[in-house]
């Protein structure tokens, strides 16, 4: 499979109002088939970057391209091939799980057979099928997270952007999500996700970027970056140096 740049962030900066820049001139490329980890402290600028990538947050400096389309100029082209899972999914609480998934399927214009197959497949994998008829406000945080994940997979995206996707998931669901990420990656989907769980990032990702105070302080292939050390050691070392 030929590698293709799915997500290209070029000199992206973001400041709120006239305040200090929360993200300062960051650039990175995520290729198709990559599982790219984005790690850093709380408030380092991970979510600000992710929200700009998925077209939620406006920005003035830099350029973000998804499969060659500009997030600023061609947002619809970008969103059609992207899936986003926020860190704390705010779903429509009074809809049932299945009503919400149908809403997302309608938005992506997914055919009835296809949506049934995909919802069933992923709902079974996450063991949430039985609960899909209940209102979302009756779900636990983990169950809401599972619904958000299924809704992200429903249109078979080319780029998945996940903000702390493992928070709130039980061990089985965490394992399932990792398996799905591997499966998507084999099919050529690019995955870009933020996490605090360095063990997971180390085992799952082929590439990683470390962000501190809005700047990328280290990035590249996992093996090259860690050079035989653990990601935790590499992270702490990079964190102390810069």
């Amino acid at each position, binding site marked *: 499979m030929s590698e293709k740049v799915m997500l290209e962030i070029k000199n992206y900066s973001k400041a*709120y*109002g*006239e*305040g*200090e820049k*929360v993200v300062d001139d960051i650039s990175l490329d995520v290729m198709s088939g990559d599982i790219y980890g984005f790690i850093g402290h709380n408030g380092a600028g991970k979510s600000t970057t992710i*929200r700009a990538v*998925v*077209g*939620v*947050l*406006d920005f003035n400096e830099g350029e973000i391209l998804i499969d060659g389309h500009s997030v600023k100029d061609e*947002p*619809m082209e970008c*969103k*059609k091939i*992207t899936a*986003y899972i*926020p860190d704390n*999914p*705010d*779903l*429509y*609480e*009074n*809809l*049932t799980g299945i*009503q919400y998934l149908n*809403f*997302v399927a*309608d*938005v*992506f*214009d997914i055919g009835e057979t296809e949506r049934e197959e995909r919802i069933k497949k992923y709902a079974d994998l996450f063991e949430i099928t039985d609960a899909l*008829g*209940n*209102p979302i*406000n*009756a779900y636990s945080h983990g169950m809401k997270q599972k619904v958000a994940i299924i809704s992200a997979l429903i249109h078979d995206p080319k780029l998945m952007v996940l903000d702390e996707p493992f928070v709130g998931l039980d061990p089985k669901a965490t394992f399932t999500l990792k398996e799905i990420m591997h499966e998507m990656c084999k099919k050529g989907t690019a995955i870009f996700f933020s996490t605090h769980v360095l063990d997971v990032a180390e085992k799952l990702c082929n590439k990683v970027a470390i962000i501190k105070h809005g700047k990328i302080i280290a990035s590249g292939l996992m093996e090259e970056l860690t050079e035989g050390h653990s990601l935790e050691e590499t992270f702490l070392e990079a964190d102390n140096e810069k």
Partner: protein
Amino acid sequence: MKNKNLVLLKTLLLSTSQRNIYKHTNDKKKKKRIVASAIGMLILYAMLIGFCVLMCIGYGITGLIDAAPEMCALVISLLSFGFTLFKTNGYLFNFKEYDMLMSLPFETRTVASCKFLYMYVKSLPWYLSISTAMLIGYGLFAHPGVVTYIIWMILSLCLPFIPMLIASFLGFLIARISAGFRKTKIVQTILTFVFIIFCFSLRFIIEAIFRNNKVEATLEKASELTGSAAKYYLPVSWFSNAIIKTDVISILLLLGVSALLFAVIFFVVGNSYRNINSALKSHAEYRSFRMSKQKRKSVIRSIAFKEFKRLTGSTVYMTNAAIGEILAVLLGLLMLFVGFDRVIGVVTQNAPVDTSVLRPAIPFILYFFIGMLATTACSPSLEGKNYWIMQSLPIEKKTIYQGKMLFNLYLTIPFMLFSTVCMCLSAKVPFADTILYLILGVVLCVFSTTRGCVCGIKHMRLDWENEVEVVKQGAAVTSYLLPNMFVVMILTVAVVILGMRMDHRLLTLILIVIAALLAFLSYLRALSLAKRR
């Protein structure tokens, strides 16, 4: 392929549909609450319809039935404009599922327009109730043909549409301007207040124009008043012409202008929608915090402070909760600088009234504004997903609600005292009476706080999607606001009449005792409800 506008609109409606919740919930208490709330709403609709039919019958009896379409259009336009101005910011901007929606393949203008259409569809039953009731009244006296009924019903859909679009556009402008400031929410709230106060005073400005043109006499007749309004706000006359003359051009103008305005406004809004939301949802970074000495507060004062931050953190909440206080202060200042007699003269169209008889009503006039919305009616529901914080802390439930009540007292009493002093000085009220009015004002604030708390706890709803549902449409607020407003209006008149027959001081003393007793009973009720929650 399904139309994305329809998909989104349908989902927005479904997500707040009580019928949908009823259908899928297993919680019997919740089901009962939904049924009770639906019955309450039906009663309110019935009252509104009854009032409008009676109003039309009044027109019919006095031979003014031709003014009914104009009156209908004017009432709907004013109500829809006013209500939209108060809630547009909560619906169009800064809503909680913004990230989820914007990450989906929707055009920004689709999201903005669907949010508007959602707001329109949700409020439509109120306006259609008014319109249908007035159509019944009109039908009884004017005996129009079938076509008129059809035209009336179709055009009724447009009547709230244009004012709502204008109000939304004003909301957009406010948000657009505020987005350029660091303290976006404060600026947004101040600008909203300025617009609202401007709209409130518009009536007096128009009247002043009429006076300058020496056409005061025209204001004496309601039918001519609506006729004058129709000259300034064309959709009213289009509607009237469409009904009375079956004027096709007026029909086309009303439909065409509605569609054109919608397209133009949401083209403009769509272009800077993301930009505005980014600014409103973002927070400037402060990295200069230094740990200094931290002050210790009592638990109740701490809760009151939390309530203060909750209020100032939301434009919709602040606008709705503080507008009464602002209007009361403005009224007080107006009285002080313009003069009690002159202001009363403007309100009563210079009717020969001895203004001194109105003095005992001062606390009630001010309470009408200040007691309009008690924060205690919304704050229990506004806890929403944060409900667990208070519940998991080692605080007695009564303390939580005492803190909430304390905050409402902090918010209302200073405004009540200041406005009362201004009005009393302006009306040259004797010192002893002023003291009694001040006491009555404070007691009324306490009553408003405790009664608001009773309604707030009783109708607590935590599973809301948008805080507008709590602040503007919640059962707690409705059950507090409507009876409170009607009772105050009746009391204001009653106090004036009683004041003509008995000593003012004795009357005020009696009112103080009654209000204090009611406040105390409400307080006990609030605490007993709090225990059960």
